[in-house]
C-alpha cells in the first residue's frame, strides 16, 4: 500500500508589539458514544425528547440506586482507541469527580482519572496544502455527561433537564502538539471523520454530541522544540482552558483571540493565570469562569459502586478484526488504485458513504472520470437540493452507466450533463434514455459534413474572414454543434472545419 508522506506544517506566528509568538494547543474532545441506552442506566439517549423523560432513578441519583455498565459503550471506547492506533488497557477503573451543580444530581461525575480504558495513540491531521501534523493522543476515558440547564426561560429560575445526564462520553485528550487555530479545527475535523467511520460517535456538533475544551498557551520561537526534546512543560507558557465549544469556527476564533490576550498580558510585563475561560462569540472575547476555580478541587476517588473494568485481549482482537477501512488507508488506496489527486481523494473519503458511492461508480470504469463526476456533478447537484449522498436519486449504477456512455464516446460530455439531469429528475437507465431520446453523439462524418457544408454555403463572408483569421474557425464549430443539437462529436467537427476552411 502507498504510504502518504507529508511535510510538517509551520507553526502559526502571531506578531506581538515586541516580538513574534508561537501557539501551543492541546484539545480535550468530548464525543458522545452512539448508544441506545446510557453508560450506567437503561434510560434512552434519544435527542429532543420531552424534558426529564429519558431519566432512570440511577440518573436522578435516587438513594440506593446502583450503576451497571453498558457493555456496548465499553466496546465503542475500545473501538475508538483501536481506530486511533492507541493502546487498550485491559484493566481500567472508574473514579468519582466531585462537584456541585444543579444539573449533576449525584454530586459527582463518574469518570476515569487514574486508569483510563485507552492509552496513547495518534492522529494524522492533513492541512490540505501538502503538510500534515502528527498529533499524539494521551488517553481516552469513559465518563458520564451532565444534564442541561436552561437559564433564559425565567428571570429568577434556571430550568434543569436530566435527559442527557449519564449519557456515555468518550473524552479524547491530545498532547499539546497542535500549533495554530487552523490545525486545531483540522484536528477536530479529522477526529470526527474517524469516529464517524468507526460508527462510535455521530459527530453531530450542533446537538452537542461532540464538543471541545481547548488549552492554549503562547511561547517564544524555539521554546516548543525544547519542550518536544525534553517533554518538560516548563519550556511552555501558562495555559488557559477554553471550555465547551461546539463549532469549528468558534474553536478557531477563540484560540486566536485567547492567544492575543495572553501576548498582550506577557508583553506588558504581566503573568497569565492558569484558569478556565469561556468564549463569547457575540463579543469575540474569552472571559474567566471564576466560579469554576474554587470547584476545581474535585477530590477524585475510586467509585466504590463499581469494580474495576476488566476486558479480555481476545475481545479486543475481535473488535480490531471488525474495524472498517479507516480514512488514511482509504485515501491512500484511492490515490493508488484510481490515480486520484490528494485533494480528490480527500473529498471522496471525507464521509464513508461518499467513499462507498464513489467506489461502486469507479469499479471497472475510469476512476478519474468517476471522481470528476461524483465530486463536480453529483455533489454539486445534491448540494443544490440539500440532499445527502445516501438520499441521492442517482444510484452508483446509473452514474456508472453515464460514465460508460462517455468513455465509449456514445455521448459527448455536454450531452452527458443533460442526461445526468434527466436521470436525477426522472430516473431510468441512462443507455435506454440516450437511445429513446436520440441523444447519441453524431460521429458519422457524413451527417456532420452535410451540416457544415450548408453553413459554409449560407455564410460566404464568414468563410472568407476565417481563411484570413484561423481563430474564427470556432464560430463554424459552434454553428455545427447548434445545428446538430449538441450531439456532434466535437473532435470530428473540429477536424472537418479545419479541413474545409483550408480548401
Amino acid at each position: 500500500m502507498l504510504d502518504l508522506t507529508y511535510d510538517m506544517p509551520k507553526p502559526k506566528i502571531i506578531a506581538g508589539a515586541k516580538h513574534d509568538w508561537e501557539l501551543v494547543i492541546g484539545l480535550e474532545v468530548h464525543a458522545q458514544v452512539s448508544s441506545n441506552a446510557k453508560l450506567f442506566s437503561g434510560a434512552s439517549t434519544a435527542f429532543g425528547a420531552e424534558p426529564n423523560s429519558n431519566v432512570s432513578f440511577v440518573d436522578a441519583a435516587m438513594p440506593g440506586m446502583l450503576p451497571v455498565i453498558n457493555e456496548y459503550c465499553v466496546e465503542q471506547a475500545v473501538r475508538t482507541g483501536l481506530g486511533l492506533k492507541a493502546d487498550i488497557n485491559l484493566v481500567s477503573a472508574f473514579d468519582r469527580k466531585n462537584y456541585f451543580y444543579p444539573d449533576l444530581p449525584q454530586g459527582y461525575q463518574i469518570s476515569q482519572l487514574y486508569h483510563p480504558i485507552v492509552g496513547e495513540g495518534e492522529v494524522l491531521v492533513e492541512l490540505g496544502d501538502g503538510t500534515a501534523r502528527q498529533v499524539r493522543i494521551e488517553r481516552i476515558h469513559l465518563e458520564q455527561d451532565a444534564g442541561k440547564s436552561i437559564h433564559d426561560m425565567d428571570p429568577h429560575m434556571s430550568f434543569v433537564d436530566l435527559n442527557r445526564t449519564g449519557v456515555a462520553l468518550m473524552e479524547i485528550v491530545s498532547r499539546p502538539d497542535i500549533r495554530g487555530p487552523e490545525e486545531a479545527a483540522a484536528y477536530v475535523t479529522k477526529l470526527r471523520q474517524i469516529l464517524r467511520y468507526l460508527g462510535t460517535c455521530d459527530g453531530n456538533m450542533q446537538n452537542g454530541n461532540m464538543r471541545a475544551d481547548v488549552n492554549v498557551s503562547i511561547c517564544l520561537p524555539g521554546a516548543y522544540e525544547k519542550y518536544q526534546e525534553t517533554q518538560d512543560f516548563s519550556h511552555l507558557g501558562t495555559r488557559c482552558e477554553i471550555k465547551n465549544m461546539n463549532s469549528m469556527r468558534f474553536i478557531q476564533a477563540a484560540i486566536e483571540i485567547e492567544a492575543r490576550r495572553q501576548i498582550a498580558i506577557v508583553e506588558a510585563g504581566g503573568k497569565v493565570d492558569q484558569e478556565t475561560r469561556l468564549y463569547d462569540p457575540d463579543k469575540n472575547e474569552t472571559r474567566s469562569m471564576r466560579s469554576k476555580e474554587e470547584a476545581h478541587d474535585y477530590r477524585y476517588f475510586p467509585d466504590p459502586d463499581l469494580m474495576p473494568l476488566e476486558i479480555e485481549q481476545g475481545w479486543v482482537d475481535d473488535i480490531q478484526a471488525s474495524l472498517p477501512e479507516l480514512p488514511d488507508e482509504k485515501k491512500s488506496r484511492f490515490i493508488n488504485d484510481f490515480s486520484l489527486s490528494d485533494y480528490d481523494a480527500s473529498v471522496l473519503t471525507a464521509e464513508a458513504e461518499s467513499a462507498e458511492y464513489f467506489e461502486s461508480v469507479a469499479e471497472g470504469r475510469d476512476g478519474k472520470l468517476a471522481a470528476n463526476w461524483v465530486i463536480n456533478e453529483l455533489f454539486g447537484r445534491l448540494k443544490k437540493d440539500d440532499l445527502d449522498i445516501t438520499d441521492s436519486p442517482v444510484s452508483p449504477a446509473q452514474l456508472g452507466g453515464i460514465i460508460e456512455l462517455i468513455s465509449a464516446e456514445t455521448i459527448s460530455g455536454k450531452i452527458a450533463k443533460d442526461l445526468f439531469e434527466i436521470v436525477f429528475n426522472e430516473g431510468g437507465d441512462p443507455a435506454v434514455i440516450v437511445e429513446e431520446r436520440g441523444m447519441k453523439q453524431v460521429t458519422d462524418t457524413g451527417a456532420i459534413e452535410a451540416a457544415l457544408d450548408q453553413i459554409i454555403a449560407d455564410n460566404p463572408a464568414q468563410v472568407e474572414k476565417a481563411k484570413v483569421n484561423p481563430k474564427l474557425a470556432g464560430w463554424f464549430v459552434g454553428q455545427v454543434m447548434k445545428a446538430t443539437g449538441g450531439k456532434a462529436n466535437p473532435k470530428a467537427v473540429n477536424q472537418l472545419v479545419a479541413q474545409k476552411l483550408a480548401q
Partner: protein
Amino acid sequence: MSIDQNTAAKVAKLARIKVEDDALPALASEFNTILGFIEQLNEVDVEGVEPMVSVTPLRLKRRQDVVTDGNQQDKVLSNAPDAREGFFAVPKVVE
C-alpha cells in the same frame, strides 16, 4: 499531615455541609484522628502486593445496550421542591 480549622472549613464548603465556626476545632481534630489512623496503615509494607478491590472475586456486572428504563417524568420530578413544564426549577445559576 495535619488538618487545621481553615482546611476543615474548606472541606465542609466543598461538600456543601454547613459547619458553624465554633464546631470547626472539633471537626479538625476528628479529621486528624482519622488521618492518624490512615498513617498507621501506611506503615504496613505492601511492596509487591496487588491492590485488592474486593474480598470475593467479583467481575464488574455488565448490561446490554437496550432501553429498559425512563418515561417516568412525574416520578422523577415528584420530590422536587419546584418543577415547571417538565423541568426541575432551581434558583438561577449563571456563569
